[in-house]
């Protein structure tokens, strides 16, 4: 071993030991966030930014945060992530499904930086954690309201992309609407975007013109509610990701609120006190990550009580939204009587349940 390699080895050793020390405990954490839309979307990204602000409020001087809005899913994301890792971020939250591969690719190059990917399932490196929320639990509550409230027996779902997360929501929404109203029929429109207000409004309009009178959306803006508002109360909808309270009491009759703050505070806190470890987090209504926004007076009291009963049963852990007997769309058996779906099936869900018309784009 000559002197140069000896020095290099020593430097490497030093680096490693410092790295280890840094992981044990940190005085100050720089937490960075990558957003898929603008903070002003009033929905998905807005809620993630609320989580970021909660981190700032919790830790004050011990934390520094940074974020970038409207980062496209794909090669651009990799550039943004690399830039963030180089600029001294200790933990990077990537807040959309499409960042999955870029997150894992960049994580491989920066083993000392922690990466947290929302709604994904790939953890290729020890420094990648994933976190998600059980939105389908909220969809169960919405489905109950939708089934009871529809007068035309036609309900709609504006879907973004055909990924398990969205398909789960559609299935849960339909199952619970069907449960309280066997005649209900579901229309699904795939918008192929997370954020395009004009397109979302057009999708809602197309549904309304075909007689749909309850619309749930899985896209990020408030545009579908704005479209429903034009009908003077004939069509109702739900707040998605954020409360969307400005459309209360109708057309917004309830909402699913993503509450990321507690998770972000927990993870940054763990990094500060040295207890940080890789996780695959998936909390829902019981853990407080999914909140059901106020059910307004536009909904009759008995329907409201029924919806709240569903919510409370899920919160208490006594009811799982995917409880058998349930068949797949093609009629084949999926869950037997009383059987509950395992998380693995849900996370890879690529089929509709029996009764839904239309196909999932493959």
């Amino acid at each position, binding site marked *: 071993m000559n002197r140069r390699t000896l020095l290099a080895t020593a430097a490497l050793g030093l680096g490693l030991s410092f790295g280890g020390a840094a992981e044990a405990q940190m005085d100050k954490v720089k937490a960075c966030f990558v957003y898929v839309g603008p903070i002003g979307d009033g929905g998905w990204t807005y809620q993630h930014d609320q989580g970021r602000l909660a981190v700032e409020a919790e830790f004050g001087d011990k934390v520094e945060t940074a974020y970038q809005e409207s980062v496209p899913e794909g090669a651009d994301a990799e550039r943004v992530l690399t830039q963030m890792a180089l600029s001294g971020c200790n933990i990077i939250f990537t807040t959309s499904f499409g960042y999955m591969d870029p997150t894992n690719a960049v994580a491989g190059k920066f083993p000392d930086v922690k990466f947290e990917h929302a709604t994904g399932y790939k953890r290729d490196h020890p420094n990648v954690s994933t976190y998600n929320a059980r939105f389908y639990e909220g969809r169960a509550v919405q489905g109950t309201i939708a089934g009871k409230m529809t007068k035309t027996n036609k309900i709609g779902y504006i879907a973004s992309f055909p990924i398990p997360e969205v398909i789960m929501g559609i299935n849960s929404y339909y199952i619970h609407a069907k449960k309280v109203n066997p005649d209900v029929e579901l229309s699904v429109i795939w918008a192929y975007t997370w954020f395009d207000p*004009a397109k*979302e409004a057009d*999708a809602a309009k*197309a549904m309304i013109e*075909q*007689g749909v009178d309850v619309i749930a959306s899985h896209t990020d803006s408030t545009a579908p509610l*704005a479209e429903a508002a034009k009908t003077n109360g004939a069509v109702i909808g739900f707040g998605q990701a954020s409360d969307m309270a400005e459309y209360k009491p109708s057309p917004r009759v309830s909402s699913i609120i993503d509450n990321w703050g507690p998770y972000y505070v927990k993870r940054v806190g763990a990094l500060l006190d040295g207890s940080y470890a890789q996780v695959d987090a998936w909390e829902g209504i019981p853990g407080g990550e999914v909140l059901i926004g106020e059910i307004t007076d536009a909904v009759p009291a008995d329907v409201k009580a029924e919806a709240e009963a569903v919510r409370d049963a899920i919160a208490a852990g006594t009811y799982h939204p995917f409880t058998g007997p349930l068949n797949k769309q093609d009629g084949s058996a999926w869950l037997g009587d009383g059987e509950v779906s395992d998380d693995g099936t849900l996370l890879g869900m690529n089929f509709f349940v029996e009764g839904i018309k239309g*196909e999932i784009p493959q």
Partner: protein
Amino acid sequence: MDFYGINPAVLIASLMVASVPIMLAAIGELVVEKAGVLNLGVEGMMIMGAICGFITAVHSGSPMLGFLGGAAGGAVLSVLFILLTQVFLANQVATGLALTLFGLGLSSLLGQGYNGIKPPATKPLPFGPLTDIPFFGRILFSHDAMVYISIAVIAAVWAMLKYTRAGLILRAVGESHDAAHALGYKVVRIRVLAILFGGAMAGLGGAYVSLVRVPQWTDGITAGAGWIALAIVVFASWKPWRVLIGAYLFGGITVLQLNLQASNSFPIKIPVEYLAMSPYLITILVLVIMSSGRGRASLNAPAALGQNFHASR
């Protein structure tokens, strides 16, 4: 008169509404390009129009003032383009792209605090009993004023370009600015006016998005409509009525594909991927067919498009 749950009258009525923003922006850009200027900043001017129109409408309570504010917002942003390309002779392509980026950022800044506010509603024009005529009443007499204004603008631009002296001069400037200059026409002044008109029309289109189609303000609300408008100008081979056809075709296919998706009873199942890409696919297809016809002349592009002019040359 429904076809598998889709009512054709309602469908046509909604495609007319959906097409208004791109139609207004495209007819403005057509005039700009006819004058020999390529302004790629349509998207930026549209979104400036969207936020300025929204702010004006919210504070004044009047949608009509909102539309005027939107037009003013788009025109003000185009002044920047005028300054850079007509005074400092900067590259038009680069300046246009910069204008889009700048407009997106500035609109986001101006829009702080306007999220979640509802603008005053734009009512359909009162046509009385005419609205109740079966089929045609829904298509022709159920819209707000802007739908009719947008068609009137197309007609006015067509008449101006084809029949008036001003139109002839504008076209001359776009075909050969040196010849027009030699004849004593003020090339730069004419182009400045054309760019201002283009900015105002893009702004008006943007205001229609934030005041009528999606009555709210969210960042990035135009979501690429300006780029579609640019494509439609080429699609229309710089002819005003074809802008209307192009905008209705694009808007129509967009609305139709959403309706086909929502309809559970439509007998032929077209895969959603094809439906989603159909507006763009058909636009490209028509472009290819049109440009393959009688050689480049049929494309009808103004000869001096994108070239800067200075009297000293």
